[in-house]
């Protein structure tokens, strides 16, 4: 077995792929920000006294966690399409990943809320703090620590999930760009190997910076 790795086409493709990586990051970051917002709402809804809210939250979390991410993205693109709602590849991918993120993070947040004992709230209130003040100053920072690492994991997962955008026609993210280059030249191995290295480096950078920030943030 002998294979010559063609460095030149790979190097030539690098700038385009790095631009693609930016789009990848954009989708991942947006999907995390939106995911966190929806996850907080879902976590609250799952504690609600109104059963329809609880049912809605449960269904979302169940579907997001127990069906393939690929299907979730398909649903946003083709699924909505069959109801006459057509959205572009980018928002479809964003919606799919956001749906997935929110489902996982909602569970993380729900667990986090249980991890901070009620007595902390009680102690804060006994010092004359109001409900919201006590939550903000005492509960939230502790909650944040509990959910921090699961959140960074989800961020990495979100980055990797963006590669599924190719199935709904996204062609300017890292996988999309790689696929375009591939169909033009069939240097499949070179391009995808390079893409894998870039994904790896992005994911590692996220994990390592998260660890660095945590070291700075959580001194206790």
């Amino acid at each position, binding site marked *: 077995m002998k294979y010559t790795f063609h460095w030149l086409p790979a190097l030539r493709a690098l700038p385009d792929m790095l631009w693609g990586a930016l789009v990848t990051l954009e989708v991942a970051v947006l999907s995390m920000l939106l995911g966190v917002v929806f996850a907080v709402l879902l976590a609250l809804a799952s504690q609600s006294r109104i059963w329809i809210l609880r049912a809605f939250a449960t269904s979302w979390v169940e579907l997001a966690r127990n069906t393939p991410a690929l299907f979730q993205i398909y649903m946003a693109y083709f699924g909505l399409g069959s109801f006459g709602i057509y959205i572009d590849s980018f928002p479809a991918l964003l919606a799919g990943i956001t749906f997935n993120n929110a489902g996982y993070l909602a569970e993380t947040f729900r667990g986090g809320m249980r991890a901070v004992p009620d007595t*902390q709230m009680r*102690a804060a*209130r006994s010092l*004359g703090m*109001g409900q919201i003040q006590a939550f903000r*100053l005492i509960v939230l*920072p502790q909650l944040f*620590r509990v959910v921090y690492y699961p959140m960074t994991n989800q961020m990495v997962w979100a980055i990797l999930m963006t590669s599924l955008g190719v199935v709904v026609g996204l062609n300017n993210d890292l996988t999309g760009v790689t696929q375009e280059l591939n169909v033009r030249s069939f240097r499949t191995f070179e391009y995808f190997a390079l893409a894998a290295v870039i994904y790896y480096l992005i994911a590692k950078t996220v994990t390592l910076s998260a660890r660095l920030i945590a070291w700075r943030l959580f*001194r*206790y």
Partner: protein
Amino acid sequence: MSIEINDVHKSFGPLEVIKGVSMTVAPGEVVSVIGGSGSGKSTLLMCVNGLEPINSGRVLIDGTDVHDRRTDLNKLRRRIGIVFQQWNAFPHLTVLENVMLAPRKVLGKPKAEAEAIAVEKLTHVGLAEKLKVYPSKLSGGQQQRMAIARALAMSPHYMLFDEVTSALDPQLVGEVLDTLRLLSSEGMTMIVVTHEIAFAREVSNRVAFFHQGRIHEIGPPSQVIGNPQKPETVAFLKSVL
């Protein structure tokens, strides 16, 4: 200026834990509350500062009805400090920050002033060396003393102590009791729920014996502990001494 507890009833669901308790604590007075577990002692403290609602009766702090809807509990609680059995240190803040937080955020004091108060109170309870340390690095006794300093930093008129030594290792009980002794010698008005009978006898002006949600006996320690009148009090003291 006093704490007046007037015929307070409190139930958790069908279980009535306080069955009509009345008692007045005068300024500068130290009242210890003793009694078996589940007798309602701790719940009474929670009702005094409004952490638990009551079913009937009244609690007046300096004439303000704690359980009146119109009462601003956040404001009222600045006057009543409470220290819990589980000290409830805020783990994400240093010792100094734990104590500074409420003076800054609740009383709105400037940072330097809040810090000065915190340092003073922490020095008072013997933790001047531990300002920059996180609570997880402290022993139980130190955390409990920090919790006392945290309550004192609000300059409360009254202090409530809820079995503050029960969760401590025996060798750490002494240092916390010393802090309480210090406070009582300074004239702090206190209600102390405790299992430390010898301590109650030593520092209290009055001792209240709680049994099945009622005060069975209340009076000077020489009477309630030294010469109990009711058979329940005698039985309880026999079991703990």
